[in-house]
């Protein structure tokens, strides 16, 4: 059932996650988005759902909240995928497995060095102070290492689906930018300059270049202090043979992300800032030829009483309040008989909805709590409802704006939960909601 093409944002394309995660051709799902929108939870919930539907899945999380990690049994940060126990396979979908791992940036970097340099050289690199702070993770390293780990997991070919959560960057775009930045640095002239003192030979043709270079290293030396420059130079010299490898792998991972087996899911909350970031990301993915599967809109609110607008609810609440005041002024709250109350009620109702009068008049008045207390509660329930409806309207406006800008993007909406998720059952609930797609109204 394809919804008709229309400018009406209500006809947003619906993202169906089950066919996506069930398709054996889908090998990688990348969840990206700005911070605080529930990326990690979405990745974990998708991984669990795919595993329970029969796929062999590994979820790579970058920086999970402690309790979410514990819910999947990965409280140890050891950079190795661990089997998650307690998955409940859907009937007829045997063979599913869920593994989860938490990225250890430094460990991943160390492993690359160990794998690509001989013993002595590896030792020199690992002991270099400059390397130690680089690998401990400053801006960019985390994104690069996440890509590196993804490449490694894919190369092992032990899983038929890898779900990746992206680092909590200042902007969702960092994830795509970092590897290129590192790559262009490694290819750059700067590396050669840094290595110059070690390589200065007597070749005449190089003379001019060398003058420039020593001037540059002189300036750098003054700036950084001689000892730091030496650390950097030894590091660069030791890493020299590995740079090609870095570049090749960064390129390979980049191509992997563009491949048909990869699907990007942009995760957002129905808030202005999060959706603006999501829109940037959607545009960026298109520019980079990366396959976007759709938008996951988390924490969308619904109401079982959506037929009652905020305005009507507030008016009704006011109506009840006013009567409470009248009652108190008359000082006869207790004395007022149910019959009298019904009578007053009749007059009020007649003024607004004649259709309701008949029913109201024939209803047997309720037993205690006293009408005043009930009215007060009812008024509060109506105000609560009005707040919910205003929230709904606000969320709808932000979604409509996104849909108007990007009508091509399929969307699935996940109803908001009142609390946080910290066990498999909670993840399963999120998974069900992810798959339910566009109907958060039924959700609480």
């Amino acid at each position, binding site marked *: 059932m394809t919804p008709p093409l229309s400018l009406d944002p209500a006809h947003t394309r619906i993202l169906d996650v089950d066919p996506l995660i069930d398709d054996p051709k889908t090998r990688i799902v990348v969840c990206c988005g*700005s911070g*605080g*929108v529930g990326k990690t939870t979405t990745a974990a919930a998708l991984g669990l759902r795919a595993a329970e539907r029969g796929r062999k899945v590994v979820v790579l999380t970058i*920086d999970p*909240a*402690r309790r979410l990690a514990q819910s999947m049994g990965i409280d140890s940060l050891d950079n190795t995928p661990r089997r998650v126990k307690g998955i409940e396979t859907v009937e007829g979908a045997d063979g599913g497995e869920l593994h989860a791992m938490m990225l250890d940036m430094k460990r991943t970097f160390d492993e690359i060095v160990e794998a690509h340099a001989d013993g002595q050289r590896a030792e020199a690199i690992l002991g270099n*102070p400059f390397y130690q*702070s*680089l690998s*401990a993770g*400053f*801006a960019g390293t985390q994104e690069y290492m996440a890509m590196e780990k993804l490449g490694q997991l894919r190369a092992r070919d032990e899983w038929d689906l890898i779900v990746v959560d992206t680092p*909590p960057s*200042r*902007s969702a775009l960092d994830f795509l930018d970092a590897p290129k*930045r590192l790559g262009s*640095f490694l290819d750059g*002239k*700067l590396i050669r*300059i840094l290595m110059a003192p070690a390589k200065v030979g007597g070749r005449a043709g190089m003379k001019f270049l060398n003058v420039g270079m020593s001037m*540059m290293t002189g*300036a750098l030396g003054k*700036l*950084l*202090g*001689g*000892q*730091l420059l030496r650390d950097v130079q030894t590091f660069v010299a030791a890493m020299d043979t590995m740079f090609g490898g870095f570049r090749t792998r960064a390129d390979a991972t980049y191509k992997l992300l563009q491949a048909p087996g990869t699907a990007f899911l942009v995760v957002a909350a129905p808030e*202005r*800032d999060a959706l603006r970031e999501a829109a940037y990301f959607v545009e960026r993915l298109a520019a980079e030829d990366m396959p976007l599967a759709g938008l996951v809109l988390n924490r969308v609110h619904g109401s079982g*009483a959506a037929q009652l607008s905020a305005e009507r609810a507030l008016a*009704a609440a006011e*109506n*009840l309040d006013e009567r409470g005041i009248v009652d108190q002024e008359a000082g006869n709250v207790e004395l007022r008989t149910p019959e009298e109350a019904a009578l*007053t*009620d009749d007059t*009020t109702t007649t003024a607004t*909805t004649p259709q*309701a009068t008949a*029913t*109201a008049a024939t*209803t047997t*008045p*309720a*037993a205690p*709590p006293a009408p005043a207390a*009930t*009215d007060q*509660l*009812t008024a*509060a*329930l109506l105000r*609560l*409802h009005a*707040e919910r409806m*205003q929230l709904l309207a*606000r969320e709808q406006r932000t979604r409509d704006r996104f849909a108007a800008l990007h009508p091509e993007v399929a969307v699935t909406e996940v109803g908001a939960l*009142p*609390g946080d998720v910290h066990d498999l059952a909670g993840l399963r609930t999120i998974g069900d909601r992810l798959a339910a797609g566009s109907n958060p109204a039924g959700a*609480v």
Partner: protein
Amino acid sequence: MSRLQVVSGKGGTGKTTVAAALALALATEGKRTLLVEVEGRQGIAQLFETEALPYEERKIAVAPGGGEVFALAIDPELALLDYLQMFYKLGGAGRALKKLGAIDFATTVAPGLRDVLLTGKACEAVRRKTKQNKYTYDYVVMDAPPTGRITRFLNVNDEVAGLAKIGPIHNQAQAVMRVLKSPETAVHLVTLLEEMPVQETSDGIAELQAANLPVGRVIVNMVRPAILDETELALAQGGASRTAIAKSLSSAGLGGARKGGNAERLVTPLLDQAAEYAERHDLEHGQRAVLAESGLPLHELPLLAEGMDLAGLYRLATELRKQGI
């Protein structure tokens, strides 16, 4: 009140908004504040509804009582050239470095150099004085990186001072650390009353304290209004008769109270919403208790029903003033 106010918080908690409101609040009564953005997102420009900010200090708002708020979006690349200029008059060589990709390297890949530049620039603004030997800015408010990275971000100069053991970078790094670890600085954490942000806030406080960085206040943002009081909550959770509520709804003009009537059909969803409210209320209560354990001053800012805009920002600033900031 410390002169350098650093505002951090988990992603999605609204730390840019709080930083901007704080800058406005501190600027009242003729004071002058500088609001510094370090993550290149142009969040400040969006909040103040102006065009993207260049790398220069620019007046963006006037506070009640004649105060002024200036804003600066620090561009790490330009800050590095500034920095080179400051120490070496490296104009031409600086440009040459840029061509070679050294600037790219320094500002994106090299460990911490980017963070050194950002914190260095903020500290420079804190210490800057006018010709009359008065501070140029009464307060500098920094919209800092999120809680998960804040300790490392502020502490980077320590690490750099350790890497570059001598030389001007070493000296500069140490000078910055002296400001950051003194009572001149206060690091505030913005959170929501939800489990993950509160957990991250507690972790962040512990990390900052372990690194001897001065933690200031905890600011709970987007606090939802209390709509049901305790009596009403208790009633909604079982005390009240459904028929009575249906009747009450009906009497307020919302349709029939009989089974299947318009008013009657509202009872279940309305009570469901109340149950959800109660669950969230309990959770929030628990999270407030966790935050109180930190022993830090707590502030609460309301959720603005119509979303964030400039008027809302002034409201939050007023709210902060009322709460004694």
